[in-house]
């Protein structure tokens, strides 16, 4: 005789409300799991999608994602000359906030060598990659642009020739791919008025030099304009059979640069930029789990206390303890399982609406289920103890 089900049938409205309440809590737990995974996924997405054999960055820098690294563009020629290197491609990456249409959007720009292709877009869902050296762009669909759209960045208009899916930066914002010179221009090219102002400021400084004529001063000020031929990293593709460690060692010692493999870049990201947020999310997850177990515990305790007299009657009639234990535990398990299924359904229907990436991993869901299931059983101990110590005399007026 399934007493738990009969009891819940009588109080089905309240039971459903409780399932929804606890289920929403579990939904937050699952969302936190997804956010935790999504945070790691977003943080590593660019690194994994680019996936060169080596990342060459400014010496002593943990760039290009964890720390700013600035190299002269020419460096890729030097890297290319190292034995074992097949391709060495300049790479630039920076985050911008610009108007797309009439909306201000946050996104990251990657500039790469269109003709070697290393560092370019990976997951094209429509259109094509960059073919021209200028005025074309590939954007992630998350940016909200369409094929053929003209997007103004800096001084020029760029035509969207391709769209990607899942190409996101370390913050989960969409990526835009430009040719290296275009990306450099968008990043470093000053506004004309600002260029003029800088020249005037420089000329004023040079005017103090008696050795310079006014004409020479003007020429020098123009020539000393800020350099835009800068990159953040050089991406290296090795020749087949080349020794990765040896090539990295040679680049370090010959060119005085820092070199990381893709795995090392991943570790840098996990230990650096992602570490704090990952720990924070893990802590939230743990706290939410504890809160869920406490709430289930209180719900089951309340359910048990409401039928304490019925439990006393059962004991008086001679019901063994296992009948009482089954009643309480079954309700706890039904509540936990139903709430978890509700949460699982809800998060799977809604995860795509979250502003940050929610990455649902079946393994996480199984582990969460096991934790909440046993947490639910643990939570019912309070109600169970109360039920087991109930005296049958309570049925006759509380002796």
């Amino acid at each position, binding site marked *: 005789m399934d007493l738990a089900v009969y009891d819940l049938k009588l109080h089905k409205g309240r039971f459903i409300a409780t399932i929804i309440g606890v289920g929403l809590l579990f939904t937050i737990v699952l969302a936190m799991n997804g956010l935790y995974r999504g945070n790691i996924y977003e943080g590593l997405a660019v690194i994994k999608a680019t996936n060169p054999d080596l990342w060459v960055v400014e010496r002593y820098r943990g760039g290009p994602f964890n720390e700013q690294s600035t190299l002269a563009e020419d460096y890729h020629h030097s890297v290319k000359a190292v034995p074992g290197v097949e391709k060495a491609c300049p790479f630039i990456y920076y985050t911008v906030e610009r108007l797309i249409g009439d909306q201000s959007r946050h996104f990251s720009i990657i500039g790469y060598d269109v003709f070697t292709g290393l560092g370019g877009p990976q997951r094209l869902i429509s259109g094509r990659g960059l073919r021209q050296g200028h005025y074309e762009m590939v954007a992630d669909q998350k940016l909200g642009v369409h094929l053929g759209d003209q997007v103004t960045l800096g001084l020029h208009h760029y035509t969207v020739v391709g769209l990607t899916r899942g190409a996101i930066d370390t913050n989960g914002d969409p990526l835009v791919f430009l040719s290296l010179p275009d990306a450099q221009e968008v990043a470093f090219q000053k506004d004309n008025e600002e260029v003029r102002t800088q020249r005037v400021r420089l000329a004023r400084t040079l005017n103090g030099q008696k050795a310079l004529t006014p004409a020479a001063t003007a020429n020098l000020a123009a020539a000393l304009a800020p350099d835009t031929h800068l990159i953040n990293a050089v991406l290296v593709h090795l020749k087949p059979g080349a020794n990765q460690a040896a090539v990295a060692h040679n680049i370090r010692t010959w060119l005085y640069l820092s070199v990381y493999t893709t795995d090392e870049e991943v570790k840098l990201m996990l230990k650096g930029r992602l570490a704090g947020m990952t720990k924070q999310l893990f802590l939230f997850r743990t706290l939410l789990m504890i809160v869920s177990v406490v709430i289930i515990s209180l719900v089951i305790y309340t359910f048990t206390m409401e039928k304490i007299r*019925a439990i006393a009657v059962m004991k008086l*009639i001679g019901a063994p303890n296992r009948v009482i234990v089954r009643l309480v535990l079954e309700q706890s398990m039904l509540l936990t399982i139903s709430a978890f299924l509700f949460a699982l359904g809800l998060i799977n229907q809604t995860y795509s609406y979250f502003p940050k990436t929610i990455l649902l991993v079946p393994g996480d869901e199984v582990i969460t289920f096991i934790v909440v299931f046993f947490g639910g059983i643990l939570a019912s101990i309070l109600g169970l103890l109360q039920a087991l110590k109930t005296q049958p005399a309570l049925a*006759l007026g509380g002796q």
Partner: protein
Amino acid sequence: MEVLRIEGLSKVFGSGRLEVRALEDINLTVSAGDLVALLGPSGSGKTTMLLCASLILDPTAGKIIFDGQTIFQKNGWSGGVDIRRIRREKMGFIFQAHNLIPFLTARQNVLFPLSLVGLKGDASQRRVMELLGYMEIADRADYLPALLSGGEQQRVAIARALANNPRLILADEPTASLDTVRGKKVMELLKKIAKENQSAVIVVTHDVRMIEGFDYVYHLKDGHLHHQVN
């Protein structure tokens, strides 16, 4: 045939200045088919005696023999008997407040003690409907207790108490929440059960109008069994 024998039973609550002697040296013998009434004012120890007789409360002293088996002796010795098993197999309880399990229908309430002794399937369903029919409440079998009147609930409670053909039925103020007419009907029913089923029935009441036709009437006052009337 002797069903219950109580010898020198005492029950003391608390100790020192707070000590309350609820029962003092109670002796009682009840045989199969006996209809016994325990009368007394509130606080006289009637319910305590019922609770001690069924070992829901442990007596302080004395000896209880049930169905030929010593289930309690002085100092708490009970001969290793499983008292809950005895209660579910050989005792039936009827309460003043009916005490039906609120989330079970009338049918399920009667089925519950049967399920505890392992009676399942058609046999148990037949037994339930037979009892509800006997109590003239079969048409309300699928109603929850909250939808039944007080009298109907009490009849379901009696059907539940009878489910396992108990050797002893203990009824605590079974008519207290009923009007006189319904109360008398319940008492008539208990008499009928005692005679037809050869069950021993002990009824606690403070209403002398309800005990007409009982075999034995005991008067309990301040924990002492004062009178015995045949």
